[in-house]
């Protein structure tokens, strides 16, 4: 069944290396260097997909990244499968498989094609109008829409490939390696600029490299021959790095660009293994030269979307670059001279060109004469009014255009053909330019948007700034480069350039047909099936902004981002609404210019590198003891230590009992530690904490509560006075970095007069917290010569001591209500300290406990955890911690806010304890609390913030925030759950040892 449409050997294709590949299950052959598109066309396969809405058969339309139709799934059902790949970009390799997307059960028989016949029912905004009502049906609609739409399938197994990121700093970045980009890069590098040249194709030279028009000459050589020599010379230039298969995805401010370098997608499977597949280049360039070229536009006429209808430039590239004929009988349809070049080139290779249909009145150029001499019929002032052929174009009907171009006259002429090359003029590729923030202007004469107001350190050269003829391109390039690179001359200053002149122009955004617009299908956006009709309907329905029309009609919203159709959409809107295109503006071009894989974006940050973890010096011990871990901020903290298959509940009950009955040990290394020094350190603490600090003696510890300026609790922790002007502050584990940042902010910006220096020492110290009635005995074994009597070393005080020769800081402070000693040593001794404690504590059944037990023990004592019992809306008063708010201090952060009318309300949510009527029932954290069950709507009073079964009290306990809870002591409240209502009684939040006897027992 395979046909061969190779017309000549091509220097860009390796015809000695035959490559077999599968498309939709059929095996085909191509050559090394072929794209999937060129290989399919060589086998005379045009039909490659179905359109999104109407499921119309669609064929390959372009030869580049602007392709709207030939979107395929590569290697389906494998772990390397990739959806939404443009067949025009992907290079074939031995064994590659590809399949059409958006068609079921097959591209040749597509059930969704019924939509085509229903299309009168599917106008612009169809999805919005139909599926949004009634709202409760959306779930059913969504299923239907997603099932019938389906743009490709994502892989279901892990990505086997490696991705990478690289930072590049260069003096000059040149985007696009056509003739302009090559000359720009060469001259930049030769003048000692460190230069990077990128191109999305696998070959340098853009469209000039396969130029064969005898009229386009540089120094009397055909431009392609001249350029080849220039490319050859690039090899010997220092300071120049060239990357092909590299497409710039985004151009951000300050010349920061992201590019995707494709390294293995074109290789056979066996050569992909263990290599980097794609690399994201993060480029910071001092100067950027955009040489991104231009995209050919199609034209908008009735049934302009059949397989076989292609861009004229694409047909030329397939024949001149890949050596493939796109058909056996080709017609060109044009509004400018470029189709004549394509026609001549094809004719030279023996491909039959039936006719050129030109909407202009005349051309009068040398090209026209050569086409006529070649025996090709030209239909002046004609337009295509219809096409036929369901899965492949077989006929084109043309008629004469009226003078104003809005209607057709005369007889319909029917011409049979299998391929139609459409040349609607050129659109500069200004996507990256506008992404950078630079502004466009509309060129009324050329009907294009061109760069207008640049940001500095950037220029556009070549056809992306609207220069289309070789002589103007090279003349302007020369001047721009000299100015931009601050050089006196370029190395191509004295070349002579000859090319054809284009004299006649005519542009009609929507071409008329003999049928009424309502009966035709002139597509503007191929991928999203938006027609000129839809755009006009949107305007009739009152949409005016181009951004709104775009969304309503979905024009330009496909994976191709409307690279082909946007200009026509604008033109049709401008014509219909009677405004100038320049005034209408364009839609925003957003990154990425071409799609990026997730792998490229993520790079090496996968698996264990996905997020940063911090581990304490004792971590290995916890792992050896098979502790379960929980994430606290970036830290991995031991959560609980199950023994013999204990559940979490069992382990926590055991740990909690042991800590109160004998001794427990907690790894507290993760607490934030800030070293504070300076002659104003005390004054500083006075300002940042709610309580007073001036009178704290050296060697004493104090608990502090830190507020935000809005009066809400921000962080808490114990701070120790190590010396006259020296404090050690501890913060919550998760809050450490933010607290340091906040304190620095105040010091540097509000109180620069204070002599205070802050240093984070979190990582420098490891902390083991010994707690329980036997903790003193254990510590005594470790440091026999330290006097641990309550007189010498009372609760809330600090001693420096030595374990052997290791200096340690010991704070007698408690978060559990038991006697506790927090032993701090230099981090590298952390594990040794821990093991020594465990060893010494063995006779006292020392029990390591994790964060869950810590939470339970502190909840028994009613101690809050910032972030669990508070949520940024709780003041110290709300927490019933009035005792810590100094009334005497003139000011501290957040003080004034405690006297705002809102923070003084009596009915704010306040922290209380809750006891369940049934002591065995444990509440769910987050459960809502109500006082009346039958009120409608139910009035929520607050919620449970902490809840545990206390083994030491043998009952369920909970902390909660309840509106007006302070005055509800003993009141019965209800917690309605899905299947039952739980009765609770408001209690004191301190459940255990309310008189703190155990601290000094």
């Amino acid at each position, binding site marked *: 069944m395979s046909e061969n449409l190779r017309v000549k050997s091509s220097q860009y294709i390796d015809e000695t290396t035959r490559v077999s590949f599968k498309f939709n299950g059929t095996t085909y052959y191509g050559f090394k260097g072929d794209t999937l598109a060129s290989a399919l066309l060589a086998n005379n396969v045009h039909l490659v997909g179905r359109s999104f809405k109407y499921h119309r058969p669609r064929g390959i339309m372009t030869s580049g990244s602007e392709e709207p139709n030939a979107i395929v799934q590569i290697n389906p059902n494998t772990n390397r499968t990739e959806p939404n790949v443009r067949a025009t970009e992907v290079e074939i390799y031995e064994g590659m498989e590809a399949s059409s997307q958006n068609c079921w059960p097959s591209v040749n028989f597509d059930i969704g094609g019924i939509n085509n016949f229903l299309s009168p029912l599917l106008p612009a905004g169809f999805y919005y109008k139909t599926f949004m009502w009634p709202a409760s049906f959306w779930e059913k609609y969504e299923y239907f829409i997603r099932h019938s739409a389906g743009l490709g399938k994502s892989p279901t197994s892990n990505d086997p490939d490696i991705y990478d990121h690289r930072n590049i700093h260069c003096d000059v970045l040149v985007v696009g390696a056509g003739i302009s980009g090559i000359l720009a890069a060469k001259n930049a590098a030769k003048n000692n600029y460190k230069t990077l040249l990128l191109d999305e194709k696998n070959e340098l030279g853009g469209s000039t490299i396969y130029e064969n028009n005898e009229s386009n000459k540089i120094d009397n050589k055909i431009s392609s021959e001249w350029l080849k020599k220039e490319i050859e010379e690039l090899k010997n230039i220092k300071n120049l790095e060239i990357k092909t298969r590299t497409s710039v995805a985004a151009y951000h401010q300050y010349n920061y660009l992201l590019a995707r370098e494709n390294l293995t997608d074109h290789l056979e499977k066996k050569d992909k293994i263990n290599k980097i597949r794609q690399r994201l280049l993060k480029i910071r360039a001092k100067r950027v030269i955009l040489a991104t070229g231009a995209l050919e536009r199609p034209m908008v006429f009735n049934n302009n979307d059949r397989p076989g209808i292609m861009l004229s430039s694409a047909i030329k590239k397939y024949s001149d670059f890949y050596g493939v004929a796109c058909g056996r009988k080709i017609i060109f349809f044009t509004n400018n001279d470029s189709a004549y070049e394509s026609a001549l080139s094809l004719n030279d290779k023996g491909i039959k060109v039936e006719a050129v249909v030109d909407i202009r009145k005349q051309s009068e150029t040398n090209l026209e004469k050569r086409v006529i001499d070649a025996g090709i019929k030209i239909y002046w002032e004609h337009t295509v009014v219809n096409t036929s052929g369901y899965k492949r174009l077989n006929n084109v009907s043309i008629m004469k255009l009226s003078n104003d171009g809005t209607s057709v006259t005369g007889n319909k002429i029917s011409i049979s053909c299998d391929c139609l090359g459409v040349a609607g003029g050129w659109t500069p590729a200004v996507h990256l330019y506008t992404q950078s923030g630079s502004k466009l202007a509309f060129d009324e004469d050329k009907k294009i948007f061109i760069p207008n107001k640049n940001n500095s350190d950037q220029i556009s050269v070549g056809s992306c700034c609207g220069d289309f003829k070789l002589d103007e391109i090279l003349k302007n390039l020369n001047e721009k480069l000299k100015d931009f690179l601050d050089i006196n001359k370029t190395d191509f200053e004295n070349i002579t350039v000859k090319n054809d002149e284009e004299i006649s122009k005519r542009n009609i955004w929507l071409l008329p047909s003999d049928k009424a617009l309502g009966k035709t299908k002139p597509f503007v956006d191929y991928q999203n099936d938006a027609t000129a009709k839809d755009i006009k309907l949107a305007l009739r329905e009152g949409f005016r902004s181009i951004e709104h029309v775009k969304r309503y009609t979905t024009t330009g919203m496909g994976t191709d981002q409307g690279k082909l159709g946007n200009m026509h959409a604008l033109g049709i809107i401008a014509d219909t609404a009677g405004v100038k295109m320049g005034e209408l503006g364009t839609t925003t071009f957003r990154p990425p210019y071409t799609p990026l894989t997730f792998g490229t974006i993520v790079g090496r940050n996968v698996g264990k590198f996905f997020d940063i973890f911090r581990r304490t010096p004792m971590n290995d011990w916890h792992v050896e003891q098979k502790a379960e871990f929980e994430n606290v901020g970036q830290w991995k903290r031991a959560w609980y230590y199950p023994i013999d298959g204990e559940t979490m509940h069992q382990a926590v009950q055991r740990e909690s009992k042991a800590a109160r009955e004998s001794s427990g040990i907690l790894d507290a290394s993760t607490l934030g530690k800030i070293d504070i020094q300076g002659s104003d350190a005390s004054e500083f603490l006075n300002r940042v904490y709610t309580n007073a600090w001036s009178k704290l003696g050296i060697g004493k510890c104090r608990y502090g509560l830190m507020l935000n300026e809005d009066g809400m609790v921000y962080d808490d922790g114990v701070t120790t006075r190590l010396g006259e002007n020296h404090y050690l502050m501890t913060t919550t584990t998760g809050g450490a970095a933010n607290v340091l940042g906040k304190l620095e*902010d105040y010091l540097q*910006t509000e109180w620069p007069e204070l002599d205070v220096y802050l240093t984070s020492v979190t990582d420098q110290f490891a902390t083991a917290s010994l707690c329980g009635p036997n903790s003193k005995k254990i510590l005594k074994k470790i440091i026999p010569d330290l006097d641990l009597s309550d007189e010498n070393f009372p609760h809330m005080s600090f001693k420096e001591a030595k374990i052997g020769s290791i200096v340690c800081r010991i704070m007698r402070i408690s978060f559990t209500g038991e006697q506790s000693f927090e032993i701090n040593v230099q981090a590298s001794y952390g594990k040794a300290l821990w093991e020594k404690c465990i060893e010494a504590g063995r006779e006292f059944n020392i029990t390591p406990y994790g964060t869950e037990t810590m939470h339970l023990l502190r909840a028994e004592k009613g101690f809050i955890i910032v972030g669990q019992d508070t949520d940024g809306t709780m003041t110290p008063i709300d927490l019933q911690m009035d005792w810590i708010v100094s009334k005497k201090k003139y000011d501290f952060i957040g003080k004034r806010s405690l006297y705002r009318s809102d923070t003084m309300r009596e009915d704010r949510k306040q922290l209380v304890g809750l006891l369940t009527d049934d002591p065995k029932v444990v509440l769910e954290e987050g459960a809502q609390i109500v006082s009346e069950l039958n009120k409608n709507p139910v009035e929520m009073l607050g919620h449970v913030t902490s809840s545990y079964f206390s083994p030491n009290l043998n009952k369920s306990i909970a902390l909660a925030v309840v509106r007006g809870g302070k005055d509800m002591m003993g009141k019965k409240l209800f917690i309605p759950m899905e299947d039952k209502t739980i009765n609770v009684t408001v209690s004191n939040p301190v459940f255990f040892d309310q008189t703190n006897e155990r601290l000094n027992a």
Partner: protein
Amino acid sequence: MFVINCPYCGERDQQEFKAGGEAHIERPKQPTELSDDEWAEYLFMRKNIKGIQYERWNHAHGCRKWFNMIRDTSNDEIKAIYKMGEKPPSI
């Protein structure tokens, strides 16, 4: 992604910095003397200008110093950078 010229370290990538909101809002020296409305004005009210905006920035992953920036929010052009406590330069 901006390039920001830290007054202490020189030009660095934006990802080393943290934005800190509107600049030149001084914390009242005597908050207790203020009415609720005056305090709320300091606490909550910030400008959100399209155009020239005075901002605080912090070289969070560098020298940790705070400084001021004048930025045109319409095109992200950084007009000036100056240290804390300094008067804004005329632009």
